């Protein structure tokens, strides 16, 4: 046979293709596992590299035939197909063709299955942007679920990325329970058995149970738990420690907050708060890496300060008397003037812009001086100990930096506040106060402001029950005691929540025909404290109440006129009606 003939060439080409397919097949061989998930065959080199770099599904069980068919059918024009589909999705959304949008984003993920941002972006589109386009809240809820369901389809295709799971946590928790329609959404969720079953494919739905039905915050908790498990098992963590590890305790805290508005707090809510507190403690005790890569603990401030103090003492022992000497003689910049001291003592929210800048400059000067001071002290140590003294100065300065940065991170998640509030809410006193607050709001709903007589339908016994006002006052009294023990909470979310209740209470006083404001209100000290620290609660301070009551006692003609700028002109036409 002549090898240069066209037929022979064809045979050769086919044979070459066949030969090349053998090694290609070997190196592309996907991973296979046994039923108990043990690796039976790790797969070919190409497959392993794909898995390492999250490029595509490398396990046989993960390969989605539809997706692969769609990718192949674009004949290498995947980018173009993706661009067209994105444009179609945008147009469908703009023209309110939401079914087409849903269908298009599904098609999009068939040809971009491993691009997590596509899943996140389009699921957010469905859950947040499309849902609000519907006037009926049941329709909105359906679209919220469709976004969530869409996102779950991305899980098996992106097993090496926890961001989809995190988004599911956010959608299931935040979207359902923090929307305007949260009351309806949460009720719909509790009775949505098919949706629970669907979520049951990924998380343990038995863990969602409460006495009132499954709770969406617990579903969010389960998602974040799954996310943490993935990271523990070696999936790269793609969020900062500080935010990543606060998600689980935050979900339980949120559930506590949601439930106390919906149901009369009981043992279950108390147990939930205890669990939330325990998780906050665990979070606080965890070694976290901040954005500079330094390890720190949320809950280690006191311990850190003690350790820094002990290092400082060790340094001072190496150079006895040096610190005092430098402070008094050679470090005049650390000597604060009375004006400086006043600037540091004034709450930040009471400073004007110029004073704030002065304070910031002072803080920087103090920080630098303090660091310099440790170094200067180390230089006063005898030559034999100087090396150790310098090491100590450096260690102290480094720890001070970490501590200062940790304070900022603590503020980001309001760690201290939530730790205290979860602790307080899990006490019997807080449970009693919350129950009374709930009862008061129920009495208010039934327009029972003052004491009322109750007849037992079985025994015929009559008894006097407190009305909404008295119940509120009792609740406030308990809260006042609690806040005395935990003063930090006066300015946190708990304080905000209580101020809402106080406003309700004052509104009720007006409705009940009583004098609107009173200084006898048990939380008046908290109102005064918050006002002094710049909170704008729109509630009168003791001083304002006294002034108001003084005005009320004067004859009407002597009361100050309301500050109304507008006056009718003398030649204004008479009312036509």
């Amino acid at each position, binding site marked *: 046979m002549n090898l240069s003939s066209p037929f022979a060439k064809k045979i050769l080409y086919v044979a070459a293709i066949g030969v090349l397919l053998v090694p290609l097949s070997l190196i592309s061989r996907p991973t296979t596992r046994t039923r108990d998930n043990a690796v039976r065959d790790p797969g070919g080199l190409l497959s392993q590299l794909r898995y390492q770099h999250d490029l595509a599904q490398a396990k046989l069980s993960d390969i989605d*035939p*539809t997706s692969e*068919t*769609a990718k192949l059918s674009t004949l290498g024009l995947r980018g173009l197909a993706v661009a067209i589909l994105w444009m179609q999705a945008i147009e469908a959304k*703009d*023209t*309110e063709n*939401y*079914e*087409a949008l*849903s*269908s298009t984003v*599904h*098609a999009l993920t*068939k040809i971009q299955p491993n691009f997590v941002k596509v899943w996140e972006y389009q699921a957010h589109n469905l859950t947040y942007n499309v849902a609000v*386009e*519907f*006037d*009926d*809240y*049941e*329709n909105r809820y*359906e679209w919220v679920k*469709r976004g969530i*369901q869409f996102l779950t389809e991305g899980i098996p295709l992106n097993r090496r990325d926890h961001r989809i799971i995190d988004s599911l946590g956010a959608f299931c928790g935040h979207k359902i329970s923090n929307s*305007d*329609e949260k*009351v*309806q*959404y*949460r*009720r*719909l*969720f*509790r*009775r949505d058995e*098919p949706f629970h079953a669907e979520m049951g494919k990924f998380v343990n739905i038995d863990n969602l149970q409460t006495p009132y039905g499954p709770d969406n915050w617990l579903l969010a908790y389960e998602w974040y738990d799954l996310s943490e498990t993935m990271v523990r098992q070696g999936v790269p963590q793609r969020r900062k420690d500080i935010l990543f590890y606060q998600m689980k305790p935050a979900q339980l805290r949120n559930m506590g907050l949601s439930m106390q508005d919906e149901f009369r707090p009981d043992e279950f809510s108390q147990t939930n708060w205890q669990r939330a507190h325990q998780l906050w403690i665990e979070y606080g005790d965890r070694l976290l890496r901040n954005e500079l890569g330094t390890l720190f603990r949320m809950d280690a401030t006191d311990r850190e300060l003690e350790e820094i103090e002990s290092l400082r003492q060790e340094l001072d022992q190496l150079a006895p008397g040096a610190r005092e000497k430098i402070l008094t003689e050679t470090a005049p910049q650390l000597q604060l003037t009375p004006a400086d001291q006043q600037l540091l003592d004034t709450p930040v929210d009471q400073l004007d812009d110029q004073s704030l800048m002065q304070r910031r400059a002072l803080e920087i000067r103090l920080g630098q001086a303090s660091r310099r001071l440790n170094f200067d002290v180390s230089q006063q140590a005898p030559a034999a100990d100087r090396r150790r003294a310098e090491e100590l100065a450096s260690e102290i300065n480094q720890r001070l930096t970490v501590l200062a940065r940790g304070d900022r991170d603590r503020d980001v998640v309001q760690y201290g506040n939530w730790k205290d509030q979860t602790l307080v809410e899990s006490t019997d006193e807080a449970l009693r106060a919350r129950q009374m607050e709930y009862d008061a709001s129920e009495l208010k709903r039934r327009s029972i402001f003052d004491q009322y007589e109750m007849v037992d339908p079985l025994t015929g016994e009559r008894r006097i029950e407190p009305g909404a006002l008295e119940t509120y006052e009792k609740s406030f009294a308990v809260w006042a005691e609690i806040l005395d023990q935990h003063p930090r909470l006066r300015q946190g979310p708990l304080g905000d929540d209580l101020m809402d209740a106080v406003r309700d209470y004052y509104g009720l006083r007006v409705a009940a025909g009583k004098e609107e404001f009173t200084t006898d209100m048990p939380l008046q000290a908290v109102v005064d404290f918050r006002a002094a620290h710049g909170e704008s609660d729109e509630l009168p301070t003791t001083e304002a109440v006294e002034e108001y009551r003084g005005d009320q006692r004067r004859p009407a003609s002597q009361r100050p006129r309301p500050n109304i700028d507008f006056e009718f002109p003398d030649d204004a036409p008479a009312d036509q009606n």
Partner: protein
Amino acid sequence: MVVEDFPNFLDWIGPALLTFALVVGACAVGGICLGFLVAAIRHGPAEAFYSVAGVIARAGPDFLHTSPRRVLTIARLALKETFRRRVLLVAFSIFALALLFGGWFLNAQGEHPDRIYISFVMWGTQILVLLLAMLISAFSLPEDIRNHTIYTVVTKPVRSTEIVLGRILGFIAAGTLLLAAMGVISLLFVWRGLSHSHTLDLPAPVESEFSAVDEAATGRRPSAGAISEAWTTENAGHRHLVEIIEEVRPRSAVPPTEFLRSEPRGDYVAYYRPVVRQVGSHSHSVRIDKSGDEPRIALTSDRGFFRARVPVYASELVFVDRAGEVKDRGVSVGDIWTYRGYIDGGVTLSRAEFLFDNFTAERFAHADVIPLEMTLAVFRSHTGSIREHIKASIQFESVPDDPQTQPKYVSEPMEFESDEHQVQVKGIERALPGELIGPDRKRLASGYFDLFDDFAANGRLKLVLRCVDQNQYIGVAKADVYFRAADGMYAWNFAKAYFGIWLQMAIITALGVALSTLLNTPVVILGVVCAIIFGFFSGDIQQLVAPQAEGGGPVESLVRLITQKNMQEPLEASFFSTLVKEADKLLIKIPEAMTHIVPNFARMDFSNHLTYGYNIDANRWLTALMVTISFCLGAAVLGYFCLRTRELAG
């Protein structure tokens, strides 16, 4: 459904024929000039004159003596050739495979699986049929010419007109066969995919198993009169809520057709009947079996998917703003899409007025209740009550021929809750409570007046839509409010939607055959692909080449790319920028002209009507048919003259 054009065939055909005649005249003159120019270059002006004259002289007899019998023979040959090449079989097999595995790709779990199914089959059919039309028409003649097999035809006593027409008709016939087969299996696929039923998800399908309505626990707002509820089983990706509704009617009134039980209440009777809540566009009827101790409830198969509503649209929609000024457009609420205009609610004069012409009882088969259907959009400027929908009202008014002297009827406003993104149906009784108002605005009479005999006595009726809730908005477009005259036959509507694809296929075939008489296959394919792009995206292309388009034309865009200037910043005034802009003006004429030459395929695409369940009216398909016939004739004439230049036939 979004409808932006409301063609009227009789109004359109006159000006369209005139334009056609002008275009034919212009093309004839242009063609003669071009032919003369080409011939003059090849043979000199004198010879060119005789040559062109000869072609024109022969064209007349060729056109006039074209034999239908020979045309059909050529068509039959073309059809045979298509069969022999097995392209029909390949295309049909691909389509059948796509349908077989279509379920993999289809995400039909939402409220409107019908839209997903229909879009899928229509899109698949369109792509395959147009591709087939392009390929068979592009390959046929050039192949015959290359293989010299064309001589076996041209040496026979056939005219060039017959060759071109025969090929066009033959290929259209092949495409028609394929399209018909695809249409039948598509209809079966859609029907099979959508058909489903449910049972009640209860231990026994009886009323005692239903749960009492409890909105505080379930979060669901019950329907008016609902006392208990139950879910159906999940099927086809959804489930329905079944509610037992208490309906009180006077003792003398006709009882409902299906009810579980009834309770006498003085002069009234309370009937308890199960009602299935709609999901998307479909629901299920209820069958009650009263043979046992307790009536058993069963659900029938789906209803609502396969419909072809015949809408009677308003001839005019005007908006009135809050000050009572008439406007062309409603209030803008900041949407990118300006299809709908909004009216603001509360105590304002703001309203939308729909004017219906030729509104007669005959169009509604003299029915006592006329279905009015609305698809309203809602914009909330404040949250308001989450539980309640935004309220709107409708009111009917007569439109006197002379408002200065004639009184007018005004009905009482009918308030209702809007249901955004859903087709709301309201049954309008013929006898409407209202008043007769004189030209001096004095009330002349009040009582019940007939919708057709009184309100629309002169065939004209005004429907006034208002938003009731303060500071909230209702959005509406002309096609959003209509009376449903009847329901057409779904299968016939399906056929009409496929007829739209057939028209597109005919155009592609005619163009392919016409181009293939002169050009070789790759160039023909390129030309047809360009035509398809221009046909489908003519609207986008016209928008792109609009003079006010940001960033300018191709040359200006290139300059901006190189100089890294954004689209908004104007180019600095200079000779160069003037040159660039003038060059663009010239260049953008080409695609703009192309969009006018190739028919707008979007006007032949009736898939939206089928998808949303609306009848494809005769005005729409007749207009599209006329455009197609004109284009195909033009393409055939072009093909004839091109074939003459090949000097294949005497």
